[in-house]
């Protein structure tokens, strides 16, 4: 699922090179402003010195902050571990980094000012405030905070978030608040990042600059592990009267919430698409195949009430639904068969198809995966545990896939954009500590043996730094204690699927929305966090509540989306929404994905693409591994089986793709095959107009208009026209047109 920006699970984000932030933190050059400026005698490491190391980039990912440090000097990434940093500076290497006898000769100062060769260059000079603070701190006896000292509670950004106008400037001030009630202005020591720098950019000193285009941006400020966000919008400068929004057609809550959002930006949605466009979308988005001419005709003739609702239900109930949605999930879960064995890969594939055939509610789907046990040959969900064998691996996958939280960063250090620490990561991992394995032939990469996964009586995970055994602990809320002999994974599933879990439903509806609308409410779809906010929070929340209300029934959720007016908007932009790519004011065009295209060509030509080792009638959507040869599927960028995990899909087109449709032997042969659609049409008694009409309905899923029909009729009527060749040439022309290749 989630072909767009599919972020591979295993490969997600390991924080060793925080380059963008590094650049930002290195640039601020104005002196530090401290309202309650400490005097020399009171300078404290945590309060006064660590922020310098962060602001000057010393502890950033590419420098001393990386796991093994730089040239023997290692700091905690972005200063998350004060004990480690103090040890590194004051005690390690026999204390050679500081000189108490003559503080100005301290190695740390000589390096930072470039007096001694420093791979990281000059970070500040002797005339900078940082230099004075470090000097004073060393002179003052390298004091640390005690319990009596103020502790940083939070940071806040002022002024309050508000919308901006194009090209407007604004200054943000970041204030740190301490538990003794004191506060200081830490703007110059913060790292800032804008998620949409074209809309609103931010300089290292907190100066905001709105761009020329309308849109929205969220600014993140980070100071000593605390994060604050500041969201703003730059609306179009031409107000739209409320009456125009009130007059828009609305089918359900989705429309209300999308229009509410659009009204804050002075954007109006596009008009409604045509009926034939709607039906084409519905078939391709719900079940991944083109509607047939007779289905289009039946839709047109249907005059009974609740037409769309009934059609959506009946399309979702077709058997192709299972293969189409199983294929999306297979993108996310399908292991490399060279790693887990062919039979285990196949059993996972069968399990997924069965889940969607039965319309397994999403909560059951999640529970059956998270608590899977038994044989990899009998219960496909178990294959996931065969693939991700360590608690760390499965934790990363489960959190990214089902919680929408990219916890991977916290495996090695505090998450830089989130509240999660290593304790949180290993607390989650502890739920998987008692996963036991028995079986044979298990040595990767090539091992096809059967394996049994079960709940062991013992097993734990340790915090990698403190070596402390961590009990299972969920990311939020209170959790029922785990009973002796109970599989901790059951407790994890209970937490995930409890009524007040804040993650699972939102992550799920965002994925499903992105699949059928083309863009997630949060992008990337599996990265939900305060610093990457949804484009429409009200919509995301409402969809999540709705999903719970319908018992996590995916078909019911899809029904709600498909019957909304928003789903039926045209792709044609109007005056106000050309720039909109995130707020669903128009339909976003997409290319058909590889398997859908392969099956569509099979349906159009009535000649199936043939796959090695599979029955002749097999559709691409039914393939169980990407290792099946297919030039077409490769050209149109199915996930690459040589990547591990093989879940990346590239959208967009390339010349390789257009050349393939233009010239590939297998497509040419299928167009010209005896018994194929062209042959059948040419041999039939049908007149040219009827043939043209059938080709349009089959390939573009609409009737030809008058001029199209008459122009092509005239082609048939030319002297010496070979009827069969003419049909073939028209089919080729249509298959090579974007109206076929794109979902409009």
């Amino acid at each position, binding site marked *: 699922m989630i072909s767009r920006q599919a972020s591979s699970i295993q*490969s997600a*984000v390991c924080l060793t090179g925080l380059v963008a932030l590094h650049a930002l933190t290195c640039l601020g050059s104005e002196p530090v402003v401290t309202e309650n400026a400490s005097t020399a005698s009171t300078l404290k490491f945590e309060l006064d010195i660590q922020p310098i190391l962060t602001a000057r980039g010393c502890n950033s990912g590419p420098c001393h902050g990386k796991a093994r440090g730089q040239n023997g000097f290692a700091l905690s990434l972005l200063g998350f571990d004060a004990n480690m940093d103090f040890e590194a500076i004051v005690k390690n290497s026999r204390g050679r980094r500081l000189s108490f006898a003559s503080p100005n000769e301290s190695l740390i100062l000589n390096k930072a000012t470039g007096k001694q060769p420093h791979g990281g260059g000059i970070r500040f000079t002797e005339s900078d405030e940082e230099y004075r603070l470090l000097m004073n701190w060393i002179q003052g006896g390298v004091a640390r905070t005690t319990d009596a000292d103020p502790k940083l509670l939070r940071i806040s950004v002022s002024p309050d978030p508000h919308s901006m106008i194009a090209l407007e400037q604004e200054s943000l001030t970041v204030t740190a608040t301490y538990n003794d009630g004191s506060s200081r202005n830490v703007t110059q020591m913060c790292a800032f990042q804008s998620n949409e*720098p074209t809309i609103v950019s931010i300089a290292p000193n907190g100066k905001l600059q709105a761009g020329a285009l309308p849109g929205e941006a969220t600014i993140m400020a980070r100071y000593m592990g605390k994060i604050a966000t500041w969201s703003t919008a730059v609306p179009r400068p031409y107000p739209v009267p409320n009456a125009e929004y009130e007059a828009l057609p609305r089918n359900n809550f989705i429309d209300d919430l999308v229009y509410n959002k659009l009204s804050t930006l002075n954007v109006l949605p596009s008009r409604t698409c045509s009926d034939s466009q709607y039906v084409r979308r519905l078939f391709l988005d719900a079940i991944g195949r083109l509607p047939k001419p007779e289905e289009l005709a039946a839709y047109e003739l249907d005059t009974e009430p609740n037409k769309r609702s009934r059609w959506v239900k009946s399309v979702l109930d077709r058997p192709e639904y299972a293969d189409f949605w199983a294929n999306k999930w297979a993108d996310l879960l399908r292991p490399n068969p060279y790693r887990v064995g062919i039979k285990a890969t196949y059993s996972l594939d069968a399990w997924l198809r069965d889940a969607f055939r039965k319309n397994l509610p999403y909560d059951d789907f999640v529970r059956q995966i998270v608590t899977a046990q038994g044989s990899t040959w009998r219960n496909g969900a178990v294959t996931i545990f065969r693939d991700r064998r360590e608690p760390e691996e499965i934790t990363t996958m489960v959190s990214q896939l089902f919680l929408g939280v990219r916890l991977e960063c916290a495996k090695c250090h505090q998450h830089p954009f989130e509240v999660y620490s290593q304790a949180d990561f290993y607390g989650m991992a502890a739920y998987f500590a008692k996963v036991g394995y028995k079986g044979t032939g298990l040595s990767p990469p090539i091992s096809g043996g059967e394996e049994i996964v079960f709940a062991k009586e013992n097993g734990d995970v340790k915090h990698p730094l403190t070596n402390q055994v961590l009990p299972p602990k969920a990311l939020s809320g209170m959790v029922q204690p785990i009973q002796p002999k109970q599989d901790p994974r059951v407790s994890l599933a209970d937490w995930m699927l409890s009524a007040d879990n804040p993650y699972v439903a939102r992550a799920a509806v965002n994925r499903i929305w992105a699949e059928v609308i083309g863009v997630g409410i949060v992008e990337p779809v599996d990265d939900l966090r305060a610093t990457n906010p949804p484009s429409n929070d009200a919509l995301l929340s409402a969809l999540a509540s709705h999903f719970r209300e319908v018992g996590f029934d995916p078909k019911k959720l899809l029904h709600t989306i498909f019957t909304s007016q928003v789903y039926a908007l045209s792709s044609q932009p109007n005056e106000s929404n050309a720039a909109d790519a995130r707020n669903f004011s128009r339909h976003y065009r997409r290319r058909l994905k590889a398997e859908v295209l392969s099956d569509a060509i099979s349906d159009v030509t009535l000649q199936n693409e043939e796959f090695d080792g599979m029955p002749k009638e097999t559709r691409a959507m039914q393939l169980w591994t990407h290792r099946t040869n297919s030039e077409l599927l490769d050209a149109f960028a199915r996930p690459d089986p040589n990547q591990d995990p093989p879940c990346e899909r590239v959208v967009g087109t390339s*010349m*390789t793709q257009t050349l393939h449709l233009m*010239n590939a032997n297998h497509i040419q042969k299928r167009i010209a095959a005896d018994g194929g659609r062209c042959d059948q049409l040419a041999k039939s008694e049908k007149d040219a107009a009827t043939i043209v009409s059938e080709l349009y309905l089959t390939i573009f899923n609409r009737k030809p208009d008058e001029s*199209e029909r008459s122009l092509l009729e005239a082609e048939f009527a030319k002297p010496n026209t070979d009827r069969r060749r003419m049909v073939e040439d*028209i089919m080729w022309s249509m298959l090579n047109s974007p*109206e076929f290749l*794109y979902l409009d």
Partner: protein
Amino acid sequence: MLRRSYLQLGLAGLAGGNFLDLLAMRKASASDKAGGAKPKSNCILIWMDGGPTHFETFDPKPEAPVEIRGEFRPIETNVSGIRICEHMPKLAKVADKYAIIRSVCHNQANHGAGNHYMMTGAPPRIPVGCGAFVSFHPSLGSVAAMERPAPHGMPGYFTMPSMSRSGGPNFLGAKYAPFVVANDPNNEQFRVRDVEVPKDLLSERFGKRQDLRRLVDRLPRYSDPQVSDPVSAYDENFQQGYDLVMTPEAQKAFDIHSEPAAIREAYGRNSFGQRALLARRLVDAGVPFVTIYDGGWDHHSDLFGALKKRLPTWDQTVATLINDLDQRGMLETTMVIALGEFGRTPKISTLAGQTKPGRDHWANAMSILFAGGGTRGGQVVGATDRQGHSASERVLSPENYVSTVYRKLGIDPSKIYYTPSGRPTHLVSDHTPIQELM
């Protein structure tokens, strides 16, 4: 040339080179200053994916302790003072035709990030994991394809048999994605698929189809760039594909079967050898950038066994490619570069579960073979320390290396690009090329 560059030249001369080097460089600088237009070079990039060991290729350390120097010995080359690995005897005979860079280094020691840095000249802007396939910045090849359009509708950027990680166009768009030649040119049935009109469609009929297509293609296009209509990219691809199919010069370039048997033998009758030969044909037809993806250099284990088998054929192909280009007078305008994403650890180790030793990822040092495109051969740029731990003389960055390639391609590395959303981006953040190679 800027004043500052003279200063740098002076320093480089003091640091390692000899007086003649310095004179040669000054001469080059002078001609640069005089505005003498250098011919634009094309590039054949041999991408040794996985990170080739520098110890067992171009930076042997025979004086280091045994756990560092490994099993192989160095041999002399035809340039006095330059020694390379004993399993590359053919390259040793043509060392006067290429330069070796021993001092490029960076800080991205996992495959995903290292590929990105060396393929694009930009460090990944958010952290990436080892297996990741990331793209934050356009690759060398994609930029070449955009800046240096190839004739006859040919793609400006080919890659075989598959795209390397981070080898894509990023914000330049799918139009500048590499054209992948996946099948094996060593196969007797080899043809570049999909670039010829199917035999049973006479050209007249193919033309007829184009006319019909113009008639049926009526999907509205949204030309306002703010809309980002994906169909625009499709249209460009279609037109370029059509041009390619219709041009005989392009078709000829793909016909590797027309090469004399002796040439095909010399390159090596294996996939890698024949890909190198096809790369030469493509460059000859005017393609500015060809990447040969040469995977499998991630030798965590069985380093010596694997390289004993692999290096001799690799050596033959690369040496033949350089010689062949030279004999055809093409070397002066064709770069041949071989490198991977990083070097490998000095200390040989055996991973848990393995029996044969190897070396692990190491971004503090690596070696790059750099021939042609006006590069003075027979020189070594920079050096690593005595144990190959890190670049110690003339320390260079991936940015320096990538800027060198851009300059030779005739592309200004200090150029600013704008992403589709209008964000300005430097092509290379530090656009100083490696002066010794210019």
